[in-house]
């Protein structure tokens, strides 16, 4: 699907000034965008600058952000996972099923959600790495399969009546503060993924695979094993997101989290991860998640309907990718 550019990679004669490149980096551009939207929101609505409003805001991106962290790694290796929203649907349905059929306690409920996610991710990983199928078709297939299973189990019914201590995962706050459990979890996960991608051998291998899978293979990187692990990880995070989302909504329908995959991929790409693989950073993804949260929350305060918001996210995705390309074209034309 992705055309490989045949242009060789060039080494510059000398490295850019680190301070200059930090200022001109994608991440600092994102921070500026985030600040601009933050300021814009504060002027647009009098209800925005309020600790509880800001705390509510975080719920707009924590669940999707958790998945985006893992998705970033998958996309950096040059693969993609379109099935994440359907994994949420299946995990949430199985949690409801476990609760209503066996009456399991909260810890088991959480375990069911997370393990379902892991299982789904492993299934994707198996198809991609063992059967060597293109991830885009595999996950279009499992996207339909996983949610289809949720429909088979639930049909037009819904599960509710989740226990009170389970709801804490999606609605709870740390002590009496305005900081939600979801936000803390996202922050911890972001740090873990940052270390994993940028400060471990594993992370270097992820980049190596994305830049040139064949060369990575010949340098002793177990390409398939790493890809398999990454699909499992994405499934796991989707399962975790399912726990949080189900706990927050307090009910499960097969149509839960419909369209989440788009928002997740938008976060990743907006965060500067190359859709062709090989480049990206966790910091970028985290800021991008924040931007999406700010945009949707700000529009929500202005009573903009969800479907219209999706125009903004869709345009944001295209514009953010198009702008650097247009800038480069403009620069090349001048040179």
């Amino acid at each position, binding site marked *: 699907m992705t055309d490989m550019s045949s242009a060789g990679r060039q080494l510059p004669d000398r490295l850019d000034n680190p301070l200059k490149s930090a200022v001109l980096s994608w991440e600092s551009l994102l921070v500026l965008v985030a600040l601009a939207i933050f300021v814009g929101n504060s002027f647009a609505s009098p209800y925005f600058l309020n600790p509880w409003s800001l705390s509510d805001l975080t719920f707009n991106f924590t669940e999707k952000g958790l998945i985006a962290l893992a998705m970033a790694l998958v996309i950096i290796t040059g693969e993609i996972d379109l099935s994440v929203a359907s994994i949420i649907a299946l995990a949430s349905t199985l949690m409801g099923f476990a609760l209503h059929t066996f009456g399991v306690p909260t810890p088991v409920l959480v375990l069911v959600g997370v393990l379902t996610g892991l299982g789904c991710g492993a299934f994707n990983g198996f*198809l991609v790495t063992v059967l060597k199928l293109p991830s885009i*078709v595999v996950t279009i297939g499992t996207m339909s*399969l996983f949610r*289809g299973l949720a429909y088979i189990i639930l049909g037009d019914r819904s599960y509710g009546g989740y226990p009170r201590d389970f709801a804490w995962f999606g609605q709870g706050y740390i002590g009496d503060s305005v900081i939600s459990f979801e936000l803390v979890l996202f922050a911890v996960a972001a740090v873990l993924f940052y270390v994993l991608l940028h400060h471990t051998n594993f992370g270097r291998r992820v980049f190596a695979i994305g830049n040139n899978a064949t060369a990575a293979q010949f340098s002793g990187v177990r390409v398939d094993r790493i890809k398999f692990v990454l699909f499992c990880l994405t499934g796991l995070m989707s399962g975790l997101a399912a726990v949080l989302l189900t706990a927050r909504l307090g009910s499960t329908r097969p149509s839960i989290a419909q369209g989440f995959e788009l928002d997740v991929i*938008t976060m990743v790409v907006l965060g500067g991860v190359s859709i062709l693989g090989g480049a990206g950073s966790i910091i970028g993804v985290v800021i991008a998640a924040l931007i999406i949260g700010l945009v949707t929350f700000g529009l929500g305060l202005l009573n903009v309907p969800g479907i*219209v918001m999706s125009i903004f996210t869709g345009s944001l995705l*295209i514009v953010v990718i198009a702008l650097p390309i247009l800038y480069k074209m403009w620069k090349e034309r001048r040179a």
Partner: protein
Amino acid sequence: MNRILKNREVWLALAILAVVIGVTLRFPRFSQPGNLLTIFNDTSILMMLALGQMAVILTRSIDLSMASNLALTGMIVAMTNAAFPFIPIPLLIAGCVVAGAALGAFNGILVWKLDIPPIVVTLGTLTIFRGLVFVISGGAWVNAAQMSTDFIQLQRGVFLGLPILSWFAIVVAALVYVLMTRTTLGRAFYAIGVNPTASVYTGINVGRTKFMAFVLSGAISGLCGYLWISRYVIASVEVAGGYELTIVAACVIGGVSIAGGIGTVGGALLGAIFLGVVNNALPVIGVSPFWQMAISGAAILLAVVLNARGERSKGRIILKKAEVVA
């Protein structure tokens, strides 16, 4: 004989036949000519869409925005008809094709001129187009009472024993077949799918060819926008929600390789018919329609496994390097 056995379309046709026979054994009325024609008519829209998607996939791209394009052009044409019922229907249909082609051209321009990966572009326009349906309609529906009689009845007319809707599918299939097999553009779709680098050296403009594929898929989506709305007689924001995956599924089941360059008109049509037959058979044998989604998912996975096996034996890689580049 060997060639026939290796032919994917033959196997798919046999699989469809097996489903039909299997269901008929328990419910003899299933395979009455009338019912089979109904299934064909029900599947017409999917067949046309699958052909448009195939052109795009052949060029190593994907168009996830087709269903949203359909919903948007459908809403435009329904609102136009409700507001100006005197506009003749053929003119409306032409307008739909042009509107759909324009939306497809928007995708195509981004892919061609800015070189943005098609999946990103169409994932974006998937939401943008559907959001626009809400914006232009204000979330309201256009229902049967607001549409003119001609608007609703045109596709229900019968010509030579077949509904006009089926004729639409037949004509579109014939045109796409000619395009794919008898024109330089059609051959270029295949060429850039098989080897974009070699295509450049033979003088094919790869970007422009992809652009044309998106215009084609857009035009077909636009046409289907009218056909869908006048068939189900309701235009709303939710029209054909999630249908983009069914279209891709039809192609994949029909043997169109997602890696580009491989696929036939017959295969894509059979892929669509397969889904149509299965979806029609489910209620007959008493399976809840809620199984549809999982079954098409499983069918996609099965088809892609089979495709991969078929493609691997095809051709011999002379230079290991060529495989990496392609």
